[in-house]
């Protein structure tokens, strides 16, 4: 996807501190010097192309519920099958294959710790591969979104 300088400015602006004003896109229009309708059209188009996942809130997962980063070491030829099973849980929101002996990495979120453990137990009962459960001990970076350059 080709991003213009105006796209980058817009996307860097809208990832945080989105205006809490009845007409937020009008506020952005004043700040960026771009017509409100143009901003809305561009954001809708980026959403249609899946470049914007959603317009909403990122919750502090320590406070919103329980969460962990987990990894499995799976034989290469089985990874698609196991990945599909892992992805099928609503509690799993990120699931990536990575270049490592532990080759499937996923994030589990639930209302409470019991909910997280239930998902991990079901996965390890179905596929008996080495499993890492790595809950966050401490977070150092405030999530400010993703700077585009």
């Amino acid at each position: 996807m080709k991003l213009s300088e105006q796209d980058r400015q817009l996307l860097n602006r809208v990832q945080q501190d989105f205006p809490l004003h009845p007409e937020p896109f009008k506020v952005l229009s004043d700040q960026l010097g771009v017509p409100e309708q143009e901003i809305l059209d561009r954001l809708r188009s980026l959403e249609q192309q899946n470049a914007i996942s959603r317009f909403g809130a990122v919750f502090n997962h320590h406070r919103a519920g329980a969460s962990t980063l987990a990894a499995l070491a799976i034989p290469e030829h089985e990874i698609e099958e196991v990945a599909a099973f892992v992805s099928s849980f609503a509690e799993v929101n990120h699931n990536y294959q990575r270049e490592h002996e532990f080759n499937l990495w996923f994030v589990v979120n639930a209302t409470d710790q019991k909910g997280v453990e239930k998902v991990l137990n079901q996965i390890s009962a179905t596929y008996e591969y080495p499993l890492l459960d790595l809950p966050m001990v401490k977070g150092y970076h405030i999530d400010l979104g993703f700077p585009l350059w």
Partner: protein
Amino acid sequence: MVAGVLEYELRKILQEGLPLVEKPYQEIARQLAVSEQVVIEKIAELKRQGLIKRFGMVLRHHELGYAANCMVVWDIPDDRVDQVAERLANSACVTLCYQRPRRDKWSYNLFCMIHGKERAQVERQLQEMIEAHQLDYPHQLLFSSRRFKQRGARYV
């Protein structure tokens, strides 16, 4: 609507996504049968309380042309982990930085994410960061080779 129910329903909408319309808060206020001002004030309150850490557009890096996504894992002596983590977190290329526990077959206790347009660029940024901050610690680069699922977390 009872306050607790309102917060629950609003959190559900905030994690699924608001509509991209001129008056998004009015739109969800209608769904929740409350006033627009109540919605705006409630979101502001959740931000102040720290329950919402970021409010706005959530992007997908890959679709925007930032295809290289690398999780760098470090083995840092326990008494130095805070100090190193602060340096990583303040580096422009790092988007997230977490301390996590060591395990039997896993000696790495600090994780950070670096995104870039291509692999070589990520490797270069990491090298520059290591040199700038003397981060001479064992580490590994776990590039993602496939994305099976990426969406917002569902808590409620």
